[in-house]
């Protein structure tokens, strides 16, 4: 049971990441626009934004595969936790910007966060991402303890 539970959670998280990654590959320009809308990365030189839009979906896909299949699972969990944390912080910052500009209440916020699933309700997305970060961090930690024992 101690070994099974982390694997089940890793496989579930891996499938979620795979779905998100593949969805972003469908229309890469949509993902590029979403990243640009956050205003975190500079538009010059252009390769910074472009490489992020091209590379991030593949990080999700490769990490998703590693979480499902097994090799490099701990590293995949750590990298996923890092990427999702950066994304979640960006969503939070943009939420505050929109609340500041439009006066929209936090619970009513909804926008396309570039996560691959179109317009989402932000508080739900933040909760979901929080669960993903906790799950991936837990897998990275527990899997290491299992391998060390």
């Amino acid at each position: 049971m101690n070994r099974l539970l982390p694997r089940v959670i890793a496989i579930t998280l891996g499938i979620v990441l795979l779905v998100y990654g593949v969805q972003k590959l469908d229309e890469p320009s949509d993902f590029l626009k979403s990243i640009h809308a956050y205003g975190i990365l500079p538009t010059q030189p252009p390769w910074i934004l472009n490489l992020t839009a091209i590379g991030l979906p593949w990080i999700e896909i490769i990490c998703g595969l590693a979480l499902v299949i097994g090799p490099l699972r701990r590293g995949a969990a750590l990298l996923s936790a890092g990427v999702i944390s950066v994304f979640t912080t960006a969503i939070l910052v943009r939420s505050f910007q929109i609340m500041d500009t439009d006066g929209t209440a936090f619970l009513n916020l909804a926008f396309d966060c570039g996560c691959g699933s179109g317009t989402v309700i932000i508080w739900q997305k933040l909760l979901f991402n929080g669960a993903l970060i906790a799950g991936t961090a837990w897998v990275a930690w527990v899997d290491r303890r299992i391998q060390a024992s």
Partner: protein
Amino acid sequence: MSAQKGCSVRMLRPRSLVTEALLLAATSLAVALIVISIRGNGGLQLSRDHFPADSLGGPEAEVEIGRGKVTENGSKPEHGYQSLTVDDAQVYQPYAEARDGIVFLDARSKKLYEAGHIPGARLCHHYRQDEYLPALLDELRAADLVIIYCAGGDCEDSIQLATDLVFIHGLSHEVIAIYEGGYEEWVNHDLAVATAGERG
């Protein structure tokens, strides 16, 4: 050489968590670059500036005709092009459909264009303009007015495409107009639309 030395086996040290993560990140980027070199990547090119209206202006720049300006990081750029209302667009649309000196350009994706567009509008997806512009440039240069639209709302693809047309392809900013309400506003006014397979 002793048999003991010949048969010695070095124990591999387990990889650290960070090493594994870096290995995966490098692999992902390598796969991404290989894939775009083989099949392209939806029009995205590493070195191309897809947001020229941002960079040609800049936070401190004055708004000039045909030059964008970013007022807040990540927000829709201000622009100096003519801005059309839905009433203006309605007046010009029949001329575009009749190819009579007016060109409507749809800067959205092919999928959205085929699902519905302003009748007479020509497809020119901003991120795939290399595919569409060569066949359109002569017509655009001869046009009295080029009206560019995208989805509406926060969509800025029309402004970015306009900036490329002026600064890369040499069109005069005076013949460029942006229909900012875009397709969303057009549909909300219950105006006629064309879909894939229909003329225009």
